[in-house]
């Protein structure tokens, strides 16, 4: 990826033309306003609502003049909805799900693309078959499985494993990874084999380093997906100590908490990730960038 680009669609000479320049300025300004309103607007509003009395939020939501006198809302929300803990749980779930996805998908793709056992096509077919099955088909039975793992007879209910393990079975990632592994020149692996490397070393020394970009994509998609997950954690994590913020917030909203406390909880659950994002913005966007830089 080039760090400094001298041109995109619009060239340097284009930029000198007054018409292009004017339009460019206008578009740039409009874009900035739109992005500020849509990106920062909700955040600022939530900030305001979190320190306003409930009745003011309802009766005058757009009021610019307000008295930030209800600082107690924030404390109530922090303790009541346990925003700190539930955000932590969200992160734990995202990291675990991503690891689980990576391990299983890499193993499957490596097996199918590099090791190619005789029964590979069968496995590949069985995995592919689940590609377009919506999660709901097996939603109920999956829940039953979590409650009582067949043969093992243990329950994963109220453990993070109940979210982590099912996340591993992602046919989409297997397909994407396998395609990428397939495109790695065989000579590299053959050379490594001649040097006496076993499959494990081929995987860690040859395949994985070459696949860093595609792994980035999978990590990103998995984190984003897990960040959004709502229904499944709500079902398998009934213990409030384990619930992610996505489960905690609607519970607060349908429970008997005052609106201002709800808004304070919403604000806290927004501001913490946003601050973290602001701090690690460079690394994050670059990571996302490299991830997306791969052409599917």
């Amino acid at each position, binding site marked *: 990826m080039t760090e400094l680009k001298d041109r995109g669609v619009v060239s340097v000479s284009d930029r000198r033309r007054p018409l292009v320049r004017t339009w460019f300025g206008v578009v740039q300004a409009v874009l900035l306003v739109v992005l500020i309103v849509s990106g920062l607007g909700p955040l600022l509003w939530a900030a305001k609502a979190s320190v306003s009395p409930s009745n003011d939020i309802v009766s005058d939501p757009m009021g610019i003049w307000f008295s930030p006198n209800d600082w107690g809302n924030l404390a109530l929300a922090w303790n009541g909805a346990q925003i700190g803990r539930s955000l932590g749980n969200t992160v734990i779930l995202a990291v675990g799900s991503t690891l689980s996805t990576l391990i299983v998908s890499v193993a499957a793709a490596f097996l199918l693309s590099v090791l190619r056992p005789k029964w590979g096509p069968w496995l590949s077919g069985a995995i592919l078959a689940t590609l377009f099955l919506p999660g709901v088909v097996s939603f109920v039975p999956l829940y039953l499985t979590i409650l009582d793992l067949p043969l093992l007879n243990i329950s994963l209910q109220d453990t993070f494993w109940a979210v982590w393990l099912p996340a591993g079975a992602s046919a989409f990632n297997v397909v994407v990874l396998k395609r990428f592994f397939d495109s790695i020149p065989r000579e590299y692996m053959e050379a490594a084999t001649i040097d006496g490397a076993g499959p494990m070393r081929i995987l860690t020394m040859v395949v994985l380093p070459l696949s860093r970009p595609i792994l980035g994509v999978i990590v990103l998609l998995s984190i984003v997906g897990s960040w959004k997950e709502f229904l499944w954690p709500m079902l398998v994590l009934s213990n409030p100590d384990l619930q992610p913020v996505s489960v905690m917030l609607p519970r607060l909203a349908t429970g008997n908490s*005052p609106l201002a406390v709800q808004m304070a909880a919403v604000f806290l659950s927004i501001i913490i990730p946003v601050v973290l994002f602001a701090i690690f913005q460079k690394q994050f966007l670059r990571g996302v960038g490299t991830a997306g830089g791969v052409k599917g």
Partner: protein
Amino acid sequence: MMKLSRRHVLAAGSTGAVAALAGTAACSDPGASGGATDDLDPSADVTISVGDQPTEDKPEELAAFNERVDEFEAANGNITLEPTAEVWEAQTFQAKLAGGTLPTVMGVSLTYSYELIENGQLPDMTPYLEELELLDELNPLALDNVKDDDGNVYTIPTGLFSVGIAYNRNIFEQAGLDPDTPPATWDEVRSFAQQIKAAVPGVTPYAQMTTNNTGGWMLTTMTYSNGGRIQDDAGTESVMGEETIAALQLLHDMRWVDDTMGREFLYDQEGVRQAFAGGTIGMVLQAPDAYNTLVRDYDFDPAHFGIGQLPQGGSGNNGTLTGGTLKLFDAKATPNQLLAAAKWIKFYEFDKFYDEAAALADAESNAAEGNPVGLPGLPPVSQEIYDRYLGWIEPHINVPLEQFASYTSSTLELIAEPPAGTQQTYAALDPVVQQILTDENADIAQAVADASEILNGIIEQAAR
């Protein structure tokens, strides 16, 4: 396949109300717990989990609950309680019930009583309630709700209520209405709403719940007030007719002709209570327990709360809808666990009715925490016992009872919920109410006819 009988029983309610709670009956598998009492050992060590523990954002309630748990364990050395914060949530209840992850006992909407008994998801509690001598002391009308034809009792009903109309006394005063005279008929509701609209800008004169099954729930209530029913008493078919159409027509006219229903038509219970607490709603159908949430959780000024009996439109067979909570005992629990669970419920919910010291302690601690004490409702115990209890706690009553006067002096017939597939029935009626409120040209009769058809499908599927 099974025979259902629903009886309407007359009796004096807490305030002279005529109560008629319907009894549901179901054939259940008697083998499941029939011989249970044989190996019942009341003194054996047993551990049970109990739900409905308050969460940490309500520290006082949590402390009070935990104290009760300690007291109970001290009094019953062989029983260990494991409290959990599990509460009934319509969204995940069925999955958790199916998965068997619910505690040994917890509270669940009474709406489910019919299905749970019919599906064998509740154990026969008769022997345990007899053992505890609780059976004779419970409100017999409430018990009828949770019995089968053979008189077996499957749960303990608590927190009974009937629907009335809550109103904002402040808004009434501003509109020049008498805050002590809530509307008694639907015609009055309509004209009061017009008056509020004219006098108090910016408020919703009359709000209606429409989502998360509350739309169907309230349409059922309005149908009852017009003398109609949703299903026949045995729950074999839809009997919606002109009474339901009249209810919808009224909503339609208030929405489209008078424009007295505001702009929000996707209210559910919490949403409408929040808006009411925000002082932007004139009238809304609610049970008196709304007072709890409004005042304690949403800081609503108690002086502004008023509730009247459900406005009526019919002349005969009309009344109001009842509901409540049932204690869901785990159908897979052992006899000793079930006995222990019943003991806990008796201790937690009923001791105050029999023991003056317990009643006073309960009332005092609630009053000290600013919780409502003496909230009107239908008693889970017989009337004399309840009156005696009210006498004990009288000095601590902090609810402005005169603002409930119209509700408590009601003599309306109390009608049970539609028996078959109750929640599904409500769910199927939600869109009907939403349609009438969001589509000016909706064909009401057609909408009701279509809903009837869906209802019959649900009933058939439920009876399969």
